[in-house]
C-alpha cells in the first residue's frame, strides 16, 4: 500500500489551510459566490439538490482498513451515516455543510485522504484495476503507474486549467476492469515480443451527450516514456481543445474532428520536438514509487483449500463462491468481491457501520486492503481461501454478502434526481425496482452476466451508454421517462449501445427489463451472455418483446 512521504503530507496540509481560508472569506463576504465556486469545486465540494456534496478521492480505488475507518467517521460525524461509492472509484458524502468542510478535510488528511483532483478542469483521479497486485494475468502492477501519473499531474501548472476535465485509466490485464476505452486516455499495459513493457494508448473515449469509444493512437509506447507522451497529448489538447463550447470541450470531440490519425501525428510532432529526458520519469524514481507500495506478505499454501471446498455444502456460501470469488495470482488465495447492490438497496451506498465491518474484516482476513471498483462495488484483493468462509459469515452479518457480482442486479446507478441538481429523472428507484424484479438469486444466476447501467441525465455518470442494457432518464413534459439502449460495453469489447425505442414511463421500466431478459433466455445459444445474443441477433427480438405493437420499420 502506497504511503505519503513528507512532501505529500505538506502539500495536502497547505491545500487544506488555503481552502479553510477561502471558506472563511466566503462566509465573511470577502469572496462572492462567483469567485468562490471554482475554488470550492477544486476541492471536491459541489452544491447539490439538498445540500453540499463532498467528493473524496480514492486514488486508483485503493483503500486500507485505516482509510475505510476514516470514511466511516466522516459519514457518522459530518454526514447522515453513509457514503456513496462512485463509478470513478471515489466516495461522495451527500450531506456536508460548507462550514464543516475545512474540518472534514483536515480530518481526512490524518488518514492520507483528500479531495484533490475530484472536480474541476484538471487531470482527475486516475482509474485503475481493482484487482491490481492480485490478478493472475496482469503484466505489472497498474497502481505503480497510476501513482506515477498522480504525482506528475497533481497541481501540474500547465494542466490545471484545461478546456475540460480529463480522466485517465490504467490497466495491466487483458480483461479490462477500468472502462479504459471510455476515458479521455486509456492505458493498457502489455509486454511485447521482446518482453518490454509498453502501453497501448487509447484517446478520446468518453460518455456524456456525445459518447465515443477511444481510438488507439499508439500500440506500444515504451513504458519509460509515459510521462513525456502524456505531456504531448495534453499539450495538443490544451492548445486545440475547444474552450468556446462546454459541450465540445472534451478531448473526444477534438480527436473525432481531427480524426485519430491526424491527432496522433500532431502528438508525435509535439513529442519529437520536446526534451523527453527532462519529462520522463527517472528509473530511480520509478523504483522508489514501486518500493513505497511495499510487499504483501503472502504465505505459501496449497492451491486447494479443504475448508473452502467443505463450506460449499452451504448453498449460500456456494453461490457466493461462484459469483463473488475469483482466482488470485498466488496459490491458495482468492479475490473476494463485495457487492454494494443488496436487493432493493441503493447501488454504491455503504453505511458507516458497514464500512467499519469491512475495515475489520479486511484487517482480519485480507492484509488490510480494500479496493473500490468502477462498478460501485468493493474488493478484498488478498484473502486466503481458508478464510473465505469466515469472511463470508462476517459479510453476511452486515448485509454485505449479496452473491450477485456481474449479474442482473449488480447495476450501476448515478445519484439521479434524488440528489443531483443536474438530473432529469431519478435513477436509484429504477435500480431498486429492477433489483426487486430479479431478487431470486437462482434466476439471476441462470441469466448470467448482464450489466445494467442507469443515468439520470445525459452526462452519463451512470455509464448507461456502455451498459449491456443502458437506461437514461429524460424529462418528457414534466414526467420522468426512461430511454433504453442495448448492446453497449465498457470492457475490452467496448461499444456504445443503441436506442431500443420510445422512452418508457417510470413504472414500465422494470417490466421492460424482464421482457428483454425473457426474450434473451428464449433465444440464447449455449454460453452466450445477453450481450453476445444481442450482437448475434440484432435488435429485432428485443424490440418485439418490449414494443409488441410497433409496426415493423
Amino acid at each position, binding site marked *: 500500500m502506497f504511503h505519503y512521504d513528507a512532501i505529500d503530507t505538506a502539500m495536502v496540509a497547505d491545500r487544506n489551510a488555503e481552502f479553510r481560508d477561502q471558506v472563511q472569506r466566503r462566509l465573511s463576504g470577502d469572496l462572492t459566490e462567483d469567485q468562490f465556486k471554482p475554488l470550492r469545486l477544486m476541492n471536491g465540494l459541489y452544491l447539490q439538490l*439538498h445540500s453540499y456534496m463532498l467528493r473524496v478521492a480514492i486514488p486508483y480505488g485503493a483503500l486500507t482498513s485505516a482509510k475505510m475507518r476514516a470514511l466511516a467517521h466522516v459519514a457518522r460525524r459530518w454526514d447522515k451515516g453513509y457514503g456513496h461509492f462512485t463509478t470513478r472509484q471515489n466516495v461522495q458524502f451527500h450531506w456536508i455543510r460548507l462550514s464543516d468542510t475545512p474540518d472534514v478535510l483536515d480530518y481526512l488528511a490524518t488518514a492520507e485522504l483528500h479531495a484533490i483532483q475530484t472536480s474541476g478542469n484538471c487531470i482527475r483521479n486516475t482509474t485503475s484495476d481493482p484487482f491490481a497486485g492480485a490478478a493472475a494475468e496482469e503484466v505489472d502492477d497498474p497502481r505503480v503507474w497510476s501513482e506515477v501519473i498522480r504525482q506528475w499531474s497533481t497541481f501540474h501548472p500547465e494542466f490545471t486549467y484545461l478546456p475540460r476535465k480529463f480522466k485517465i485509466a490504467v490497466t495491466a490485464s487483458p480483461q479490462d476492469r477500468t472502462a479504459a476505452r471510455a476515458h479521455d486516455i486509456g492505458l493498457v499495459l502489455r509486454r511485447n515480443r521482446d518482453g518490454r513493457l509498453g502501453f497501448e494508448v487509447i484517446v478520446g473515449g468518453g460518455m456524456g451527450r456525445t459518447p465515443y469509444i477511444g481510438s488507439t493512437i499508439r500500440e506500444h509506447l515504451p513504458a519509460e516514456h509515459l510521462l513525456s507522451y502524456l505531456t504531448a497529448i495534453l499539450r495538443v489538447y490544451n492548445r486545440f481543445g475547444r474552450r468556446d463550447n462546454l459541450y465540445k470541450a472534451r478531448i473526444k470531440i477534438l480527436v473525432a474532428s481531427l480524426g485519430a490519425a491526424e491527432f496522433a501525428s500532431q502528438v508525435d510532432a509535439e513529442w519529437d520536438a520536446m526534451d523527453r529526458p527532462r519529462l520522463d520519469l527517472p528509473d530511480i524514481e520509478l523504483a522508489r514509487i514501486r518500493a513505497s507500495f511495499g510487499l504483501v506478505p503472502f504465505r505459501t499454501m496449497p492451491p486447494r483449500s479443504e475448508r473452502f471446498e467443505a463450506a460449499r455444502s452451504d448453498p449460500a456460501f456456494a453461490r457466493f463462491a461462484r459469483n463473488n470469488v475469483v482466482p488470485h495470482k498466488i496459490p491458495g488465495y482468492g479475490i473476494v468481491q463485495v457487492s454494494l447492490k443488496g436487493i432493493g438497496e441503493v447501488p454504491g451506498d455503504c453505511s458507516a457501520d458497514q464500512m467499519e465491518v469491512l475495515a475489520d474484516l479486511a484487517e482480519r482476513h485480507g492484509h488490510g486492503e480494500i479496493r473500490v471498483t468502477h462498478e460501485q462495488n468493493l474488493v478484498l484483493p488478498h484473502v486466503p481461501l481458508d478464510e473465505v468462509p469466515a469472511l463470508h459469515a462476517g459479510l453476511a452479518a452486515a448485509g454485505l454478502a449479496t452473491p450477485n457480482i456481474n449479474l442482473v442486479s449488480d447495476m450501476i446507478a448515478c445519484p439521479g434526481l434524488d440528489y443531483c441538481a443536474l438530473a432529469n429523472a431519478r435513477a436509484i428507484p429504477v435500480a431498486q425496482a429492477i433489483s426487486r424484479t430479479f431478487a431470486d438469486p437462482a434466476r439471476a444466476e441462470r441469466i448470467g452476466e448482464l450489466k445494467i447501467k442507469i443515468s439520470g441525465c445525459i452526462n452519463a455518470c451512470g455509464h448507461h451508454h456502455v451498459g449491456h442494457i443502458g437506461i437514461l432518464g429524460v424529462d418528457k413534459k414534466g414526467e420522468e421517462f426512461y430511454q433504453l439502449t442495448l448492446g453497449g460495453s465498457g470492457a475490452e469489447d467496448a461499444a456504445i449501445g443503441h436506442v431500443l425505442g420510445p422512452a418508457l414511463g417510470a413504472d414500465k421500466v422494470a417490466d421492460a427489463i424482464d421482457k428483454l431478459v425473457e426474450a434473451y433466455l428464449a433465444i440464447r445459444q449455449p454460453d452466450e451472455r445477453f450481450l453476445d445474443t444481442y450482437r448475434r441477433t440484432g435488435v429485432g427480438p428485443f424490440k418485439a418483446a418490449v414494443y409488441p405493437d410497433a409496426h415493423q420499420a
Partner: protein
Amino acid sequence: MSEALKVLTANDLAGGQVVFLSEAGWSDRYADAVIFDDAAAADAALEAARAATLTLADPYLIDVAAVDGLPVPTSYRERIRALGPTIHPDMGPQADGGVLVHALQQARGAARSSGRLGLIRRK
C-alpha cells in the same frame, strides 16, 4: 383560470440545506413558504435575496400550482427538492410529515392547478 403562483427558494450558504422565504425570514420548511401571486412582488423578493450573498446561494423562484387547495410545486424536481431524497423518507424536510408534505409526495408529473388556493400566506 389559475393564477401564476411563485415561491422563492435558495440554498443556505453555510449549511447547504434548501430554504424558502417565509413571513419570518428564511425557513427550512416548504410549509412555511410565502406564496406569491403577484409577479412584481416575487421579482422584488428575488432581487433582495440575490443581494443577501452572506447567507444564501443560488436563490430563484419556482412555480406552484393550487392542487386541491394546497400549494404544490409544478415540477417534480422542485417537489423532491422541497421534500428530500425520495429513497430516504426519513431524511430532509419530509421527515416532519404533515398535510403539505403528503400532498407533495402524492403529486405526479407536472402538477396543474385544480382550483384556487385554499390556504393562506399569499403576497
